[in-house]
């Protein structure tokens, strides 16, 4: 499925996650956290992770942004829960490839699951960062960076 029209960018799944974002709170005893900021549009979010051993036991986010960035963060937290750190990094890598149009979920092997819905967002270059900000922030948190910016 391509996403070359607005109707496909604002699919029901994305609108629904925007309306009711999952894991939208702070984890008080987070082992990792970072703040992400997109100076271009003012999107601003924090990602919290609780990692035990190698397993992401809990992950959440807070902040404000557009529907795309909120939905992407919400779906990211769902996808990451229970994964190990290496899998999270692989998901980040694949998601990045997806949103810049270098991974085609219909042809290439992937572990993206529901996240494949963001396929084709590269048709909207100014919106790619909205979808990827939470992932960069999550990756930064795992690497113990405190703040991430998309610029």
């Amino acid at each position, binding site marked *: 499925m391509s996403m070359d029209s607005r109707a496909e960018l604002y699919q029901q799944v994305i*609108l629904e996650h925007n309306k009711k974002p999952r894991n939208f709170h702070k984890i008080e005893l987070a082992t990792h956290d970072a703040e992400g900021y997109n100076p*271009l549009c003012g999107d601003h979010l924090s990602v919290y992770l609780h990692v035990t051993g190698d397993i992401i036991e809990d992950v959440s986010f807070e902040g404000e942004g557009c529907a795309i960035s909120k939905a992407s963060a919400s779906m990211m937290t769902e996808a990451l829960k229970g994964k190990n750190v290496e899998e999270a990094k692989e998901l980040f890598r694949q998601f990045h490839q997806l949103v810049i149009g270098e991974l085609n979920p219909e042809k290439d092997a992937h572990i993206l699951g529901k996240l494949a819905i963001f396929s084709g967002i590269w048709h909207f270059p100014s919106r790619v960062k909205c979808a990827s900000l939470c992932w960069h922030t999550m990756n930064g948190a795992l690497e113990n960076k405190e703040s991430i910016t998309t610029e």
Partner: protein
Amino acid sequence: MITTTPMLDIKKIRKDFPNLDVTVHGKPLVYLDNAATTFKPQCVVDAVEQHYSQGASNVHRGVHYLSEKATEDFEGARRKVQNFIHAKHPSEIIFTRGTTESINLVVQSYGRAFLKEGDEIIITEMEHHSNIVPWQMLCEEKGCALKVVPFNEDAELIWEEFEKVLGPKTKFVSVVHISNSLGTINPIAKIIKAARQYDVPVLVDAAQSISHAPIDVQALDCDFLAFSGHKLFGPTGIGVLYGKTDLLEKMPPVQGGGDMIASVTFEKTTYNVLPYKFEAGTPHVAGVIGLGAAVDYVKSIGFDAIGEYKKDLLDYGTQVLQAVPGLRLIGTAKEKTSVLSFVLEGIHPHDIGTIVSDEGVAIRTGHHCTQPVMKHFKVPATSRASLTFYNTKEELDALVKAIEKVKDVFK
């Protein structure tokens, strides 16, 4: 009594701008992003094209025919700009890359040479980042302090606050004439007059105002004025710094190179006269010629007609947008120009921008390089429709219709 209302032949004017015929997703383009950049009339495109296809020589260099012709066109455009802003001398018109470079030139030259530790610089809360950051850089280097005059809930400058910070420590005032994100028209004549009591130079950021109303730098008595060609229906990459001769004379050059020198030896270089002292290197000849054509074009339409037409558009736009449930206008100054910034309850401006774009409507969404303004109104960003004289009421109706689509998607 008979009053004559200057009328714009809007159909004819729209034909002058080939860019207005573009279609987006099969729909006619509705271009409402004129505060970011304006479209170029065909005469500007032609002037630039003609330079590159039939002129294309360097200026102030050769004695051959084309170089002399280019120099004549180039200096002719300088005089057009001089007349346009009513400067006393053509040598007070310095060509830069744009408003940002013009402001930076003043900061780097005047600021570094004449400001010192403890001196205060006054700006306002509604400045574009380009009139904040260069001064902050100077403050860091010199130990000067930046004083910021706040605005009220209608986005009008609070005069008493300006009077509070203006004093013997003030050594420079740099203010935006018209806010790009709010549309507010600041009382610059009053500000300049007040600054005179302390003999403080005033820079006016005219990026938005240059296309809005006639500017007379001598009547205003401003010391510096900065603007860009591309917001005045001219090319990108060309801008103007106006400065009073006595100030420009005593300011050191910022860039060294060709054209800005009178003579060079390894022992000593003497600088060229104004304005060349500040124009090192080959200038943007085509840009200057295009700007000259843009100035001619705006003059041919006339600011009386432009002003009247835009006021009518602004009133209409304000009325139809205010009628949209859940929409809040940001920037409601009594004195304002045709900028309509707004937020929609529960919907992020970026989502609005993308969805209305699908309907062919081009608006700007984001912080508009005025993050302190966003902070003041406690919003991360706004959507902004900015209008000029080729826009129509039908286009404002199209915007409202597109906003209804946005609300449908998010209902």
